[in-house]
């Protein structure tokens, strides 16, 4: 079966993130000059404007900042999943990222600890998602 959900738009900046996800690693772009970390990656550090940026592996631990349940499919590939849950996670390293929360429970609280898991949704694509700890 072909994968019919939207794919990441790969570019020279974000390629390492997606390659690492396939290996079960969550990467954050990192500034060797000032230590700032972020996702999505940018061409320069937004704090100090240094151009040479590298990557660090995140611990995968974070806290739940918010969540929603999508009841409308803006892509046909999500129709069978409705409603599906999207979450906002603050990673231990600081950056806030959007992902899916694998837990279906209604009993959620902001600030709940979560941990990354890697969902190999197709042969070519692994999505970092989060679960309650």
């Amino acid at each position, binding site marked *: 079966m072909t994968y019919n959900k939207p794919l990441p738009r790969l570019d020279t900046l974000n390629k390492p993130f997606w390659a690492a996800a396939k290996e079960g690693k969550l990467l954050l772009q990192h500034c060797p000059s000032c230590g700032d970390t972020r996702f999505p990656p940018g061409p320069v550090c937004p704090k100090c404007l240094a151009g040479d940026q590298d990557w660090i592996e995140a611990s995968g631990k974070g806290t739940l900042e918010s969540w*929603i349940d999508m*009841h409308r499919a803006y892509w046909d590939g999500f129709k069978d999943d409705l409603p599906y849950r999207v979450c906002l996670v603050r990673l231990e390293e600081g950056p806030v990222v959007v992902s*899916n929360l694998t837990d279906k429970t209604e009993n959620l609280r902001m600030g709940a600890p979560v941990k990354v898991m890697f969902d190999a949704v197709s042969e070519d694509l692994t999505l970092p998602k989060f679960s309650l700890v």
Partner: protein
Amino acid sequence: MYDLNELKDKIAVIGVGNTKYGNFPEIDDYGLAAHAFRNAVNDCGIDKNKVDGLLVSRIPYYARMGEVLGINPRWTITLPGHGRMSGMGIIEAAAAIASGQCDYAALLYANIGRSRRVNYGGDESPGTWDPWGFTSPGAAHAMAFRRHMEMYGTTTRQLAEVSVSIRYHACLNPDAVMRNPITIEDHESARFITAPLRLLDYCLINDGAVCLILTSKERAKDFAKPPVLISGWGAQDTYSPSSIANFDMDFWYPAISAAGKQAYEMAGVTHKDVDALMCYDNFSPTVLFSLEGLGFCGQGESGAFVEDGALSLGGRLPVNTDGGHLSNSYMQGWALNVEAVRQLRGECGARQIPDCEVVQYVQSTPCTRSIIYTRG
């Protein structure tokens, strides 16, 4: 160089116009905008050839627009079709007039999103988070409102008050798209689009166009209607996280506070003087965020503030007396500025605020702007 506050009361809105709002597949952006322009010209009685400033938003090509209207201005600016451009555009035009770049500026906005079936999500607006299915401004506002619920105990029944009050106003506006009254129960039983937000938390998508004509206070005396003065404005952008579009972890509170403070200071009024608030209501939670940021209530207290119809005509702070984006028309802030002018002129019929003297516009977005209008 001017101190910004010196521009208090220097610029006036002399003419406003709009098309009907609805579904018009037979007419394009230029056609809609031309009708709104003609209505604004007729509203103030200006010779259209005097218009020497042109600002267009969500209109494909400024030069074609000028050709359609038969004008050759000496100041032209194009803004993208983002809602947040209305406040920015009015401020830019005021600054252009104040600095002598033009004398009479026509500001034109047209939207053909209804007849062209615009979705505001998915592949129309590609983003970083598409692989996880996170898309659309509504989803971003749902994410923010969930945080507000968690942090402050705000409820969806309180949120419903926003939609119910604004729909009540639409019922008093013969030109509004949605004119059937709704209740809190209707809101609570509407279908989810992005939980915790339901259908009645979402703005309309409709076709239409709006035009405002601005000039200096001195020149404004020569026209048909009493001028409405731009007494103050304030601005603050918040560009991180732009990868999470239409979202701010702090509900834009710092930006709204800063823009509001600047606008109040320039106009020499406080929120206590405001007779009506025209609040960018793409989704109902932004009204709550705006009330807090501007200081109408404390941070986290907007849920209690809006209860018992506080935002309805006759309540403690009438909001969006034309029915807003939620129930009148999705003119991305432009029609709310027109409504501010009409309220101050006393032209609003059944929805008129008695003795209306100060009306504030606010858009709480990555480009937060507030404008204070007063009677000239």
